[in-house]
């Protein structure tokens, strides 16, 4: 293959420098070093890491072995015990005798009792579902909670919910672990004189607190409630009306670690409406994302992903949209873009002005071209010189201009939340100029129950706390000590307040400084109502009674607002919500009987549409106010220092779920790093500062400094570093404590740019090292004969949308990877005889056009299949237990990579090589095409894993539940979390994806009961159900009438490693990049 020869040559020609500046051999290149040759030839081969790209000998050696170095080493005989064989046997016999006589009650698992008090509607083994609302973040998605015999075991999206439409994020998926967290607070406690908390009764706590609150109110001292964003009408009424009536000095402050504050304030200046409108993203033919990760960790990603992916479907008849991304940090959105341009984050505003000047002054596409005030502001910006100065691709910028011009009114420009107000104003104008405001949804708008507190309000609060004006602070399930920017001085101010109460599920940094810590219910144990948009309400209902001696936070405040501890009862807040609905959402019901009927219907559905959309009033957008642009806002300009951007964690959110092991162990979409945050820096910055991954750097800005390990992230702009927030919790359970670095302290209320962005950062190398663990290179396995496996074997197959439209057969027509001789060899038939599946034959289709690599599927799989958390040390040793992994491949250069994602799971091969080698027939094939595992048969030889070409089998090297963090996963509460339909595996057993066989069995049973055939589309695997973009399809390959059949036999379909003739049953639909050029076939694999 000529390309391969060229590629090898180019690699050999490279010289690299190590951290001390010496020139060393290419063969030694790792992520610790970076290439000197900046103009290196583009390498179209796929690579997973720098070590692989530069053929690091260690990596090549490791790839030849499935197991990590040391796994097969002969043990050191000198380290053996000196106990003789005879003595050993004697001791063994004696200890066995003692154990046998003393362990009659060992591991008492309780008694088996008949379920004779069974509720009428419960049938053993049949799940029930409850519609509810997730409160894991501010977006309040609708969920369906699955319970078995009363235990919530799985959370999925509520298909009736108009926003989330049956999907939720990883935090929602994993939230069931929060319910059963054994480290949840179980009793109220009081902390006296800074000693540890003493448990007290609820009555005593209520009594003491009510007395002190009354005293504070009567002496005119403020009673402050600090809460996260309020989305609930009933909660709003309780806090701002009823509690305030009881305690007139009460004030509510709300905040979120991440918000659209800059976007909203810019929109208000431009259009007079307080919140940014909803956008018909699915109607946009062209999307330009400016440092915006709307598919990753920004905004309502569940909804964004759904709307975006509706236009990435090759079969629904709609044209593909085209996504342009301009960014400094490598984001999920950017890596999914058709065109990605790398630009420093603080240069983005100038880029927008250059585009504005191009469209307004040069191309005169808008009436604003005649507005001298506007054109005057724009005339100093020149796109050509900007492109030149920032080394952007002229061709790509020309495509962008052409596309935006051609799609006026059907394109959309979006900017990241961390960008300052001035950038958002410019972006609003760009959308206005292009007529894209047509995509703003007019009749449905976002409802802000209580606006988030402004900077000045929070400053006043701190000042009042410090001056003794505040008599009590109530943390309403919030953690301001950790979440608020450090320069507010909240923690210091708190010490001046005589009464601090924390209502929280688990200990946190704020509860640690409280006089009273009151445990609250999780969302599975709480009532609530929510209104995030003006066209519907959603409800939250408790599916079980509280597991511990906890109360719902609203119940606690309601009791206090009644002024006596005796006011509490278990239904106090339920009745409160119902009363509010009688007067509000279900006002039209009339009679009590009719209300109850509608109330139960609402609880059943989880959502209620409002027939008449409430008047938007002051939130109605007006015409664009050009004075927003011309007013004296300071503009964001490019600095000479480094840009620091602070991001929401892709798995932990704002850090409140740090004690959730499933979330900690979920790999980040691009770096695949687990159990840590890090500073993502570019290859160029690493080179300039002689940094390598794992080096600890000190980042200093005007807000302060932190020390954080470095990860060299391909595709990051030079001079930009990005750090995720939500880590470094100092007061947390055993799982989340001190994991990662607390970068929250870098946030500043006084940042010149924005709370989440600085362009005055300085980086210093500390000389220390901290090991980050990434799953990226795991399960890479080949041998010399199969070198460049992902290139030659076309594991990733791609093309362009134009190519597909011109020739739908292009994928099969251009297979040129083998020489004629090789092709002849491949025609040799299999030695196995094909078994003919006449009935159902299960299969999966994964649409790579829709997969964004977000990991939602992995989170769902973990919950459904009782996957244990193994911990960072075991992930480092290649022992993570996830049944589905997202392989992320880069192609191109480290500076400008293209990215491809590919979910990889057991392929349930017809001729499964794992089956042939199992000495005990523990893995075998079923008549409906499943590659099954009999855990009880498995003796742990690992031959199957060795023989699996996809490396999707996972071995239980330990009983990980026992091994991880003092056996926290063996606590009683965690055992209640297990899905009883899936065996909990123990040490020495091999496991892997089962295609959710328990769900298949459910359908099979239903088919038997209803005397019909199994219907493939009735089965939805956990990953399929969770996939935000509906990239995963599952069904019966033999059902020719089903939609699945068409996808499975589509012209874009291919199977991975098809030439080794194992006949996998997972079909991948090739990714089509919607670029304007038909690229050479050789460059697409």
């Amino acid at each position, binding site marked *: 293959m000529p390309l391969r020869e060229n590629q090898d040559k180019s690699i050999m020609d490279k010289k690299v420098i190590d951290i001390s500046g010496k020139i060393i051999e290419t063969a030694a290149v790792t992520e610790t070093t970076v290439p000197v040759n900046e103009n290196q030839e583009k390498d179209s081969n796929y690579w997973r890491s720098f070590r692989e790209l530069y053929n690091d000998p260690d990596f090549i050696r490791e790839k030849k072995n499935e197991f990590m170095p040391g796994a097969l080493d002969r043990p050191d005989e000198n380290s053996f015990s000196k106990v003789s064989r005879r003595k050993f046997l004697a001791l063994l016999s004696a200890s066995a005798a003692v154990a046998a006589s003393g362990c009659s*009650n*060992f591991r008492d698992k309780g008694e088996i009792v008949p379920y004779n008090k069974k509720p009428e509607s419960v049938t053993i083994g049949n799940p029930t579902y409850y*519609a509810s609302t997730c409160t894991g973040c501010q977006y309040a998605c609708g969920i369906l909670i699955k319970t078995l015999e009363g235990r919530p075991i799985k959370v*999925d999206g509520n298909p009736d919910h108009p926003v989330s439409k049956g999907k939720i994020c990883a935090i929602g998926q994993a939230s069931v672990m929060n319910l059963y967290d054994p480290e949840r607070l179980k009793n109220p406690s009081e902390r006296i004189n800074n000693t540890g908390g003493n448990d007290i009764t609820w009555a005593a706590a209520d009594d003491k607190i009510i007395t002190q609150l009354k005293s504070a109110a009567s002496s005119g001292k403020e009673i402050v409630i600090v809460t996260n964003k309020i989305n609930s009408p009933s909660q709003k009424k309780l806090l701002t009306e009823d509690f305030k009536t009881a305690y007139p000095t009460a004030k509510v402050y709300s905040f979120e670690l991440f918000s659209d504050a800059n976007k909203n304030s810019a929109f208000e200046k431009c259009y007079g409406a307080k919140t940014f409108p909803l956008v018909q993203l699915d109607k946009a033919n062209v999307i330009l994302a400016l440092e915006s990760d709307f598919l990753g960790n920004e905004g309502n990603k569940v909804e964004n992903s759904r709307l975006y992916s509706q236009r990435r479907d090759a079969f629904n008849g709609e044209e593909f949209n085209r996504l342009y991304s301009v960014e400094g940090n490598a984001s999920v959105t950017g890596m999914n873009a058709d065109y990605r341009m790398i630009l420093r984050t603080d240069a983005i505003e100038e880029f927008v002005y250059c585009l504005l000047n191009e469209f307004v002054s040069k191309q005169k596409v808008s009436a604003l071209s005649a507005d001298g005030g506007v054109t005057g502001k724009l005339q100093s910006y020149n796109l050509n010189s900007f492109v030149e100065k920032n080394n952007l691709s002229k061709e790509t910028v020309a495509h962008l201009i052409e596309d935006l011009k051609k799609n006026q009114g059907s394109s959309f420009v979006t900017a990241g939340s961390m960008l300052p107000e001035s950038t958002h104003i410019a972006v609003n104008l760009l959308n206005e100029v292009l007529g894209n405001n047509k995509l703003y949804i007019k009749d449905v708008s976002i409802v802000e129950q209580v606006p988030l507190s402004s900077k000045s309000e929070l400053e006043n609060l701190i000042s009042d706390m410090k001056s003794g004006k505040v008599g009590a602070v109530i943390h309403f399930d919030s953690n301001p000590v950790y979440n608020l920017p450090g320069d507010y001085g909240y923690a210091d101010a708190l010490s001046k307040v005589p009464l601090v109460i924390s209502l929280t599920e688990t200990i946190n940094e704020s509860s640690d400084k409280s006089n009273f810590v009151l445990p609250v219910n999780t969302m599975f144990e709480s009532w609530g109502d929510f209104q995030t948009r003006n066209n519907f309400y959603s409800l939250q209902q408790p599916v079980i*009674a509280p597991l511990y001696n906890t109360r719902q936070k609203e119940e606690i405040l309601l009791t206090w607002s009644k002024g006596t501890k005796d006011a509490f009862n278990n239904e106090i807040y339920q009745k409160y919500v119902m009363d509010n609905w009688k007067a509000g959402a279900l006002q039209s019901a009339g009679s009590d009987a009719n209300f109850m009927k509608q109330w139960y219907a609402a609880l059943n559905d989880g959502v209620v549409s409002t027939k008449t959309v409430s008047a938007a009033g002051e939130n109605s957008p007006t015409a664009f106010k050009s004075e927003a642009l011309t007013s004296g806002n300071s503009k964001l300009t490019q600095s000479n220092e480094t840009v620091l951007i602070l991001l929401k964690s892709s798995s932990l959110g704002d850090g409140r779920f740090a004690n959730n092991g499933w979330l900690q162990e979920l790999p980040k979409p691009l770096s695949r790093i687990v159990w840590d945050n890090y500073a993502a820096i570019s290859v160029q910055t690493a080179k300039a500062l002689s940094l390598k991954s794992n080096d600890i750097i000190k980042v200093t800005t005007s807000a302060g400094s932190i020390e954080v390990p470095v990860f060299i992230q391909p595709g990051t702009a030079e001079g930009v570093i990005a750090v995720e927030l939500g880590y470094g919790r100092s007061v947390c359970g055993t799982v989340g404590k001190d994991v990662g670095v607390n970068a929250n302290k870098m946030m500043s209320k006084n940042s010149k740019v924005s709370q989440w962005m600085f362009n005055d950062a300085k980086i210093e190398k500390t000389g220390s090292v901290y090991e980050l663990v990434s799953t990226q290179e795991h399960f890479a396995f080949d041998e010399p004969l199969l070198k460049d496996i992902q290139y030659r074997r076309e594991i990733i197959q791609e093309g362009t949308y134009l190519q597909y439209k011109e020739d739908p057969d292009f994928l099969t027509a251009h297979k040129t990877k083998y020489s004629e001789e090789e092709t002849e060899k491949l025609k040799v038939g299999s030695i196995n005889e094909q078994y003919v599946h006449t009935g159902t034959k299960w299969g999966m289709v994964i649409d790579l056009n829709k997969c964004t690599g977000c990991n939602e599927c992995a989170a769902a799989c973990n919950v459904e299949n009782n996957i244990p958390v193994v911990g960072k040390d075991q992930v480092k040793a290649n022992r993570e237990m996830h049944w589905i992994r997202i392989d992320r491949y880069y192609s191109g250069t480290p500076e400008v990579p293209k990215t491809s994602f590919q979910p990889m799971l057991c392929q349930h091969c017809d001729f499964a090589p794992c089956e042939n080698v199992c000495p005990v027939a523990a893995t075998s094939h079923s008549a409906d095409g499943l590659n099954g595992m009999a855990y009880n048969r498995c003796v742990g030889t690992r031959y199957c894993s060795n023989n699996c070409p996809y490396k999707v089998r996972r071995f239980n090297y330990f009983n990980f539940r026992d091994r991880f963090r*003092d*056996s926290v996963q063996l606590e009683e509460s965690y055992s209640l979390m297990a899905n009883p339909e899936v065996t909990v595996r123990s040490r020495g057993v091999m496991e892997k994806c089962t295609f959710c066989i328990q769900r298949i069995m459910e359908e099979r049973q239903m088919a038997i009961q209803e005397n019909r055939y199994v219907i493939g589309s009735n089965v939805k695997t956990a990953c399929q159900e969770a996939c935000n973009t509906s990239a995963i399809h599952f069904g019966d390959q033999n059902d020719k009438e089903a939609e699945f059949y068409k996808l499975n036999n589509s012209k874009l379909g291919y199977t991975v490693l098809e030439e080794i003739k194992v006949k996998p049953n997972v079909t991948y639909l090739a990714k089509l990049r919607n670029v304007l050029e038909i690229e050479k076939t050789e460059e697409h694999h």
Partner: protein
Amino acid sequence: MPEKNNLIKNTESVTIKRKKFFIYSGSALLGLFAFLNIPSSLFRSGIASKDSTIKITENPNAVKRKSRQVNNG
């Protein structure tokens, strides 16, 4: 009489001696006492205390649905 003598002899052979009886019954009582009183939790390792057994109770006021399909109610 030979028959009578045999009967007496047989009766004597199945009688447990007083001393042995007390040893056996004492040992049995001691064993029973030990079995009932030695806390089995001594032999549990790495497993949390079961003192606070969690009770799962469904909420009677919640409204359940049988399917995860779209409801359109």
